[in-house]
């Protein structure tokens, strides 16, 4: 009896944001999108920034996820992320401010440049979801 459903659990340090069955998931890993269907082999991965889409019984759910980790274990998919914002609540003004802040970061040393690139990437992803 193959699992026809995934259990999607999104946890942030503050609370469990989402805990519902889903039939398919799409979200960004550190190097690109990944799709997860029921019956996926166990996986631990690093998340990128961007949109998490889940097909659930009550329709399509969408969140902005802010880095972190994913763990697939049996039918349970756990997303550990610093922030998970429902896409409908992502504000354009916030995203623009984040991009401005990211662009203003110093990028003189190698480490700083990496941080800056990451922040800009994050802000851009946020901006594409904003409305």
């Amino acid at each position, binding site marked *: 009896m193959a699992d026809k459903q995934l259990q999607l659990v999104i946890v*942030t*340090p*503050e609370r469990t944001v989402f805990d519902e069955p889903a039939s398919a998931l799409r979200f960004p890993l*550190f190097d690109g999108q990944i799709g997860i269907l029921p019956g996926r082999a166990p996986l631990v991965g*690093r998340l990128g920034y961007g949109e998490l889409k889940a097909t659930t019984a009550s329709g399509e759910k969408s969140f902005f996820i802010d880095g972190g*980790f994913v763990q697939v*274990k049996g039918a349970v998919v756990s997303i*550990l992320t610093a922030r998970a914002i429902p896409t409908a609540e992502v504000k354009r003004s916030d995203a623009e401010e984040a991009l401005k802040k990211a662009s203003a970061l110093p990028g003189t040393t190698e480490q700083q440049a990496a941080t800056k690139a990451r922040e800009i990437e994050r802000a851009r992803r946020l901006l594409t979801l904003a409305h």
Partner: protein
Amino acid sequence: MAKARAIVKRLKAVKNIRKITRTMELIATARFKKAMDRATEAAAYTKKISEIVADLSATNLTFTHPLLKAHETQTNGILLVLTSNRGLCGGYNGAVLRPALARQKELTGPLNLSVECSGRRGLAFLKYQQVNVTEQFTNFEDKPSYDEVEAIANRYIELYCSGKLDRLDIAYTKFESVSRQKAVVETLLPIGSIGGAADSTATEKKIDYEFLPSAGEILEEIVPAAFKARLFKCFLDAAVSEQIARRVAMKAATENAGDMIKSLSMQYNRARQSQITSELSEIIGGAAALEA
């Protein structure tokens, strides 16, 4: 009559105080419940993190990360003290500040120690003790948010990784159970172990994970996340413990006020009775004098 009046006045004042402390107790109870819910919800994240760490350690990986490594020369240290913004919470702040000050004295010699403090109560105390506080936070009430804690954590991580910080201690009240909270001083950096649940894997069935990118690179990311979660937990623990301490203190105050009201009304009744008796005996005495 004068004495009875004075007692009535005191009685009224004590009754007022009882009303106030009773209300504060109720508020603290409500806040405690909320803080407690937050803390239990936050526990899910820490649990998951240690689960992944346990999975990682099952791959026989050697843990190397700048945050895990103790620096060879210890020159700079930070002591973070978590206290409350408000008073009227019994021994809560005193219990944290006592061991904190002891640790500060102990570390000041060998290390170039800077003290950081959250909470107005602690700031006032440290100022009185003439301890120089380099960084102060008063924005943490009963609901510390992750964003604020993360900002602090990021600063520590950066300082530690760049070698400007060799040791981070934190003094806070650890929440053990609803009836037990303990003021402790813990060393957060270097991180001793990020596992905690690592030994429970032996009983579990081993799962062969696919790691994306690699176990090593995931570890590199998970160590800071574990540190942030741990620091956040300290703040949450402190917030919950503060509300418990306040509830207990206010409960005791309400009970004391009740006892005081009892003894005061007894005194008042006695004063009134003796006044009536003396008036009566005066009248009888006067009548007897007229008859004679």
